[in-house]
């Protein structure tokens, strides 16, 4: 796809996997090494990985040798699975060190404490970059994965993220989220506009620019369209915006509130709260044929639907007991069950992409904190602990991380942590940001 010139939107880099390098013991090696790693478990130990500077094969752009190695290390560390080793402890000169299993002194790396080793070389010719990379299992003394990429040199970060994805996949059986983005709301004077940033908060771009209130951005399943709430036409209506073209369309413009959209996974339907019949109830909207049916109806406030990944159940907020609590609706049977019983203010449910958790924001001692709980109500865990207000949790598509808004350093900004409660990091910088929503992976494979 051709790179677009506009400043907003999602831009697609042209990175091509040229071929996979096959090692001597390659058949089955990667698969047999792969283990299921559940980093939500407190017993989880991070895997140490050595990433020497990449080796440059041409005299062009030698600075990338260290920048690419650093970016790869940061990316792998970000995933929560790996602990990159300090390269100052490495013994060999990365510009003369060997590239293949036969040339690598695995015993030395073992002694340094490395579980895995990444060895890469690259060549820049004009605008083009060719990157060759191998992941070695230090204990087995074998290559686990080998890849050769080509693309434009300005897209080197995207290329390194692709490599990080492959490494995560080879070791854990689950890709990373390095090609994902977050949508969020940023305060712009009296207005609030929708922005996008990379998975780590980098590269923020403004998506809407209508000077009104724009809220609650949510990605559809293939990452091509965001639904959001806007007052640009006066009242709160739900719109869709194509993140590649910027084209907008009205998704729900009924009388009263049209808020809290949530795409039903894999479909063009949305759950949303409408007050068209007087009370804020949750409806299933089919914008393509302009129909809507009621899913949750009561005298109470019913908002913030979040679908289970199979699209069969819906977590949502209702204040039918007098204060907001989270409920789960079975859409086919209409049966609803209360999920939260602790605390008097539980909102913003977010069903995890594997379906195994529901994150939410709960008020404890006057502060909002992020919790996770099993969809059956068991195993309640508190992930943040009273530093500012922590709200609007959203899962990374691999289920390893939760992003949320937090006022822990003053103005609200977007933060993320691993689902085991560690690895807290701030994603957005200056300004006031809120309502993050994590995109799906953009790449099909």
């Amino acid at each position: 796809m051709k790179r677009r010139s506009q400043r907003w939107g999602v831009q697609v880099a042209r990175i091509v996997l040229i071929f996979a390098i096959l090692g001597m013991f390659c058949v089955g090696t990667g698969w047999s090494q792969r283990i299921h790693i559940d980093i939500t478990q407190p017993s989880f130990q991070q895997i140490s990985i050595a990433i020497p500077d990449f080796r440059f094969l041409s005299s062009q752009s030698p600075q990338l040798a260290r920048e690419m190695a650093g970016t790869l290390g940061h990316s792998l560390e970000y995933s929560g699975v790996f602990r990159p080793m300090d390269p100052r402890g490495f013994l060999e000169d990365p510009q003369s060190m060997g590239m293949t299993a036969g040339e690598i002194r695995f015993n030395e790396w073992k002694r340094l404490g490395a579980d895995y080793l990444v060895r890469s070389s690259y060549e820049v010719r004009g605008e083009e970059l060719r990157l060759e990379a191998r992941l070695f299992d230090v204990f087995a003394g074998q290559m686990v994965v080998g890849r050769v990429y080509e693309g434009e040199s300005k897209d080197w970060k995207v290329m390194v993220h692709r490599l990080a994805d492959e490494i995560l996949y080879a070791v854990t059986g689950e890709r990373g989220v390095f090609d994902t983005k977050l949508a969020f709301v940023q305060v712009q004077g009296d207005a609030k506009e929708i922005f996008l940033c990379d998975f780590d908060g980098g590269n923020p771009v403004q998506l809407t620019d209508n000077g009104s209130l724009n809220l609650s951005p949510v990605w559809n399943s293939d990452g091509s369209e965001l639904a959001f709430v806007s007052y640009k036409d006066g009242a709160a209506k739900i719109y869709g915006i194509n993140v590649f073209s910027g084209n907008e369309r009205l998704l729900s413009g009924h009388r009263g509130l049209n808020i809290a959209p949530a795409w039903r996974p894999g479909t063009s339907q949305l759950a949303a709260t409408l007050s068209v019949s007087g009370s804020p109830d949750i409806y299933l909207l089919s914008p393509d044929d302009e129909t809507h049916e009621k899913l949750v109806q009561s005298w109470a406030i019913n908002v913030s639907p979040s679908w289970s990944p199979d699209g069969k159940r819906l977590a949502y907020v209702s204040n039918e007991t007098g204060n907001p609590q989270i409920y789960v609706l079975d859409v086919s049977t209409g049966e609803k069950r209360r999920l939260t019983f602790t605390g008097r203010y539980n909102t913003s449910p977010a069903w995890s992409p594997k379906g195994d958790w529901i994150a939410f924001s709960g008020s404890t001692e006057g502060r909002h904190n992020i919790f996770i709980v099993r969809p059956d109500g068991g195993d309640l865990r508190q992930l943040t602990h009273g530093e500012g207000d922590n709200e609007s949790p959203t899962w990374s598509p691999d289920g390893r991380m939760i992003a949320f808004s937090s006022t822990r350093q003053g103005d609200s900004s977007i933060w993320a942590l691993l689902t085991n409660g560690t690895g807290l990091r701030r994603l957005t910088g200056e300004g006031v940001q809120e309502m993050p929503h994590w995109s799906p992976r953009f790449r099909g494979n």
Partner: protein
Amino acid sequence: MSRGFRGLGVFALLALVVMSVGACAQKGVPPVPGVGEPAYSGVGEGIGAGAYPGMEDVRWRELGITSESEKQEFLTKAEVFENRNIYFDFDSYVLSEPAKRILDEKIVFLRQYPRVRVTIEGHCDTRGTAEYNLALGERRANSAMQYLVNSGINGNHLTVISYGEERPVAFGNDEASHAKNRRAHFVLDY
């Protein structure tokens, strides 16, 4: 909001015309508010001062206002009407007794000027969740509207809109600020 924005738009246009003609600035014409500024106006700003003198005489007559003194009376009462909010308890849209007394004052005004239209804005404090507060703000505006309608005010002249926690007027993180934000605000359109 649409009415409010339309009002702002007309006003902005008026200001633009005044500027482009090169006439002396009309006394009391405030600076044009920025795009996206909330539709409500404080004392001496926007609707309260500069916009009314430009209104056609026929529109005053439609409101039943035929003299300058009646106009001044209306403007004074309209200002009070718009500046008197009603307030709510945390996570509540129940009308308190003081809130009902303020609504009773509004009913007196609306009976005197039955042709005016009112937008009732529901607002929340900044605690809590934005989406829940959008719904709660609508409930607050609806509570006020229902009270007015129950007292015989024409519901066709009343519009509700919720801004949830998106348009606070007090920015502290203390109960006094929160209390000021848990409000229904009334905007006149005539």
